[in-house]
């Protein structure tokens, strides 16, 4: 399994930023918030969330609008929006690398996990109050019916269905976007798998610390590791003083 590459704070002007690279996409995410909101967008009791997805070439169209709505509702469920009423949290996601072969409409689901993970990391970097930590994962079921744990440029065209799912640490399913032909049993099976994979990205690196360790498919706590590394580097001035 390839470990997603994460870099925190590559940008200077936005409040928080992160790059996220997996084997299909590389996403640069910038988060600003809480910032002033336009009067018509402002919500009286909570912060409004605005997600902008910018494709590598061309202007954003219906595909980006659709992805934006998915991410917007997912972010809404993890961000403590009630803390900042009448403000705006902006998340901008720039795709900086995508598969060379242009994907068909079904395969656009493949971008969702990368976009969500990048958005989450940028919110983390911006220091916005979050309810929980969450990760998303991508699965495919190929024409033979076997589950592809790792969808890559090579096997994506063989998949009869694609599934993007995100779980938080409270075992809640944040979103599920499934396209293609699949049975209910297959989906059930996948939901369990996705749950394990998402949680394993968040589990602690010390196995004896708590009981949340799941050591199965794709058990690499990459997000936990990235967040921990960020914490260490960004707080190193405290230790040295």
């Amino acid at each position, binding site marked *: 399994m390839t470990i997603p590459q994460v870099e925190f704070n590559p940008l*200077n002007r936005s409040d928080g930023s992160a790059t996220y690279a997996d084997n299909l996409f590389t996403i640069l995410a910038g988060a600003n918030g809480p*910032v002033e909101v336009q009067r018509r967008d402002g919500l009286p009791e909570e912060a409004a969330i605005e997600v902008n997805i910018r494709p590598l070439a*061309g202007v954003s169209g219906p595909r980006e609008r659709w992805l934006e709505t998915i991410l917007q509702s997912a972010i809404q469920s993890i961000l403590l929006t009630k803390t900042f009423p009448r403000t705006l949290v902006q998340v901008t996601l720039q795709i900086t690398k995508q598969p060379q072969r242009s994907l068909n409409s079904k395969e656009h689901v493949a971008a969702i996990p990368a976009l969500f993970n990048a958005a989450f990391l940028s919110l983390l970097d911006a220091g916005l109050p979050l309810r929980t930590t969450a990760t998303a994962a991508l699965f495919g079921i190929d024409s033979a019916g076997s589950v592809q744990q790792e969808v890559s440029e090579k096997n994506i065209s063989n998949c009869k269905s694609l599934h993007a799912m995100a779980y938080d640490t409270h075992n809640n399913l944040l979103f599920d976007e499934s396209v293609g032909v699949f049975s209910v049993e297959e989906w059930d099976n996948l939901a369990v798998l996705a749950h394990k994979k998402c949680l394993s990205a968040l589990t602690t690196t010390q196995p004896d610390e708590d009981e949340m360790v799941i050591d199965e498919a794709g058990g690499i706590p990459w997000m936990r590791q990235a967040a921990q590394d960020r914490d260490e580097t960004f707080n190193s001035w405290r230790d040295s003083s």
Partner: protein
Amino acid sequence: MTINERKFIEKALLSELRIDGRHPFDYRQLTIKFGSEEGSSEVQLGQTHIMAFVTSQLVQPYRDRPNEGTLSVFTEFSPMADPSFEPGRPGEYAVELGRIVDRGLRESRAVDTESLCVLAGRLVWAIRVDLHILDNGGNLVDAANIAALAALMTFRRPECTPEGDDGQEVTVHPPEVKEPLPLIIHHLPVAVTFAFFGSGDILVIDPTHYEEAVMRGRMTATINSSGDVCAVQKAGGEGVMQSVIMQCMRVASLKAADITSKIKNAVEAYNTERALKKVKQHSSSDAIEVDEPDIKLKENRNPYVFKEIGESLKYHENRLKEELDRKRSENDGVEIRTFSSQQGASISGENVKSRISGPSNWDPYSKGIAPDFLRRLQASPGSLAVDKEQKNGRGLQKLNEFKTEKPAVEQNAFSSASVEASDVRQQISSKKSLMDAVKPKNRRKR
């Protein structure tokens, strides 16, 4: 920005001090990187960060220009670059930025659009440059212009040939079948931006975003390395003395030459790396065609050959510099030209040979090579692969090491003379292909 900050910047400028410690005519550090795909570049100018991505598409030409392709530049600001940028509708600055870059590139005819014609009046290539402003550290215009140039210089469009009985059907060849073609770029118009402070008498080059917030006026001069002014933009702001403008132009032409050589070096380094990748792919694909005599020959040479490729390329730059210094460039200059221009031809034994067979004084390892061995090597490119296969991966490892340790940008080792040499080469090739582009078109018309 607070009044205190504003006052501080203005006060400091009176004594020729800038808040980032530069002198008025110092440019910020410029870094040019290239993406994994052809035609993508990332430029960092101080804190400013811009990504350019070039794509091409076959379209119907405009009615009034039936045998010219099109070049269009698109910029859009996002709140990622600066919280004050609003997504959606482009602001005044975004429009201005797009126009300056567009005018500099298109209206100065930097990219040859006639060679983008496939079928006159029916099919031409439309080149689209997308500029993504990732981080606004000030002076977006210059950075965007450099990013666009670098991306256009590394972009390659797929080759296509007219087919069918009447030559009206076009086959687009995928990159595996026919080597994609680079664009023909006649010259590199480089934008240099100045900011005016006070009553237009204080002048700085390459303003940061703090200085942009304070400045009273701005002027962008787009100049190429031979000193031609391609475009000048001064949209309102404080009135400036004519003599100050002339001073700006002189400074701009110096900076433009400097930036041009930086872009060219970066592109050269990228092309070298790309060619190196091709050599590697080529040799591995040839691994099947093994013939007996070569293996025998290889027995005593083995540990060297692959290492030599790595070594020789490592010394490639140094050698180039040395040789040029010694005014012995005639022979080697030709070699390098064949190597880096590699239009359409995959790297074969001949190119490999041209790099190995330099004079032995620059490469300690090449002393052991007999000329007849080189001739054999040239005759059978497969022999390279034999090494890789047969011998310890040490040589190969060396090659990889070399690839990774080689930075994408910088390359100060290339002397300015080499840049000139490549310039000449570029001009020659562009003339040729211009003719090529025109001829078939006329023929088809009749």
